[in-house]
């Protein structure tokens, strides 16, 4: 059964990387991409179907990841969607704040594409065996 993902990431190549992992592994999951937090909110509000999982970059121009996360978690319908952070750093404050607001995972983007592909693959396989709320 295919999952639906929302990837919120400002860097084009990062978005390409994610898509490539899905493609190379022949996953039949659906990926929606948003360039920033504002766009992501628009998508979430306009779509009847909520994504099964949100992948969120922290460092983004305009609304950054943490701001988006706060809005998401204070929304009564959106708050149950699990969010996995894709961050550049394992900065302690970012980690702590993210978990405080409420996240389902925190991935530090590795330098090497191979390492990245491996991490994303593990993640997707993990979430594939999870029971998720369907609306």
């Amino acid at each position, binding site marked *: 059964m295919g999952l639906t993902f929302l990837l919120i990431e400002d860097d084009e190549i*990062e978005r390409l990387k994610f898509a*490539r992992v899905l493609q190379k592994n022949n996953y039949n999951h659906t990926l929606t991409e948003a360039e920033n937090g504002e766009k992501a909110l628009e998508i979430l509000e306009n779509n009847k179907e909520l994504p099964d999982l949100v992948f969120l970059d922290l460092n983004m121009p305009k609304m950054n990841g943490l701001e988006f996360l706060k809005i998401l978690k204070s929304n009564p319908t959106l708050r149950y969607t699990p969010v996995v952070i894709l961050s*550049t*750093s394992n900065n302690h404050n970012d980690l702590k704040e993210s978990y405080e607001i409420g996240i389902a995972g925190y991935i530090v983007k590795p*330098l090497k*594409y*191979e390492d990245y592909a491996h991490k994303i693959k593990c993640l997707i396989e993990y979430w594939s065996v999870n029971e998720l709320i369907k609306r």
Partner: protein
Amino acid sequence: MSNELEILQRALQREKAARKQAEQILEGKSRELYLLTEELKDVNAKLEEGLTEKTSELQGVFGNLVDAYVLMDISGNVIKMNHSAKELFGYDINQEKLNIVKLIYKEDYEYAMTSFQELIVKGSFSDYQARVYTKHKGVRTVHINASLIHNKKNQPIAAQGIVRDITEELEQKQIFEEQKKQLSAIVENSSLGIALTQFGKIIQTNKAFQNLLGYTQNELLQKEVKNISLKDEYVESENNMQKMNDGEIDNFSVNKRYVKQDGTVFWAKTNVAAVRNEDGSIKYQVALIEDITEQLEFEKQRDRLVKNLEKSNKELNDYAHIVSHDLKSPLRSMNALLTWLKEDYVDVLDDNAHNSLNMLLKKVDKMDHLISGILKYSSIDKVDHPKQNIALRDIVTDIIDVIHIPDHIAIKIITELPVMVGDKFSLQQLFQNLLNNAIKYNDKEQGLITVSCKEKNEFWEFAIADNGVGISKKYHDKIFQIFQTLDNQGESTGVGLSIVKKIIDLYEGTIWLESTDGVGTTFYFTLKKEIK
């Protein structure tokens, strides 16, 4: 004849009568005389009694006189001395003769003679003050009042003097004067303005006070404290003054402004202390004022600088953090794109292209390491881990367990390692970086690395010794600088030892090394046992 007889008889009778009368008178006079004599005897006896009384009274006064009493004849020979005089001069005229001249201090001789002339001419002198020699005590200063004694013919026969020893009194006075001088020297030369006030009125000031205010002493004495204060601040001081009057406090300190003679104002730290009467009421207030206008300006400046420093420090930290992450993003992209090139065009690219792509990937990797290094280096003193007791033996043992140690290398802890207060993260980093280096640069068949420690005053001195490649003397300073590495081709970024140095700085220690090329290196470093 008969007439003659008759005349004779009458004459005889008259004579008899006259004689009887004379006898009677005589008798009367005799009685009077007798009575008078008796009376005189009585008076005399009384007088004698009185005289004895007076004499013994005088004798008493003379003997008990606290001051020395000296009686001398006109030539200066001492006839009489009381007990005090004997004590003072040390002579006893019952034992030896004494002439007053012998007592006169050489330098005062002339003055003594003048005074003696005055005595002869005027009959007395008073307030004579001069030095005298005594038999035992040396030179004393005395005060003398003297007068002449005359006989019935009003000729001078003797002179008497009351002598008081004022040597100590004078000395005390001198000491007192000296102290007064010293005290006023302190007060006058004090850089603090000092003023004595009484119920708000200025009654004494020192030079510094006058200079600070720009008034003369006399001008200030016409003023009250409120005349040289700002109104609002004076009210505040008044409250304190009231408390002082009530005995609640004995002194207080305020920073207040004073108005100078030219109308300008300056800030001064003012200490006011109460000088109380025996009953506790206020006698004076002593105010010490110190111009702190400049000091306040400095403080303001310092606060500004500290704030700026804090700001730029934070900016710098944020900067390092942000820059590092922003630099890492493109590297990740480059790595991805290069990898895809290799993957997607595996059939198209020749060996040469593959080599180039691999070298590019390596450079990207190196760049990433450098950025990580900057990040680590800049966050060493930023991470505010709590200080706790750290058992360094556990730290080192953990590191040995965790890091990769090739089979031919052994790490041994050869002494006790202390437990010290610090933060675990930085201490771990310190030992790990040094041990990593020791492992990485070991070229021997049997590598041996030892860790040891000894106590050195307030410091622990550690030594990490290896039998590796060694480091030339000329590089001993350079290796602690960031991005300086002696490794030409490897992945070394030159950050490890600079982090080590930074951590040791945090523990107020030092690091140095002894090394022989090809034989091995020993890194020594100290850590302060207790840091603030």
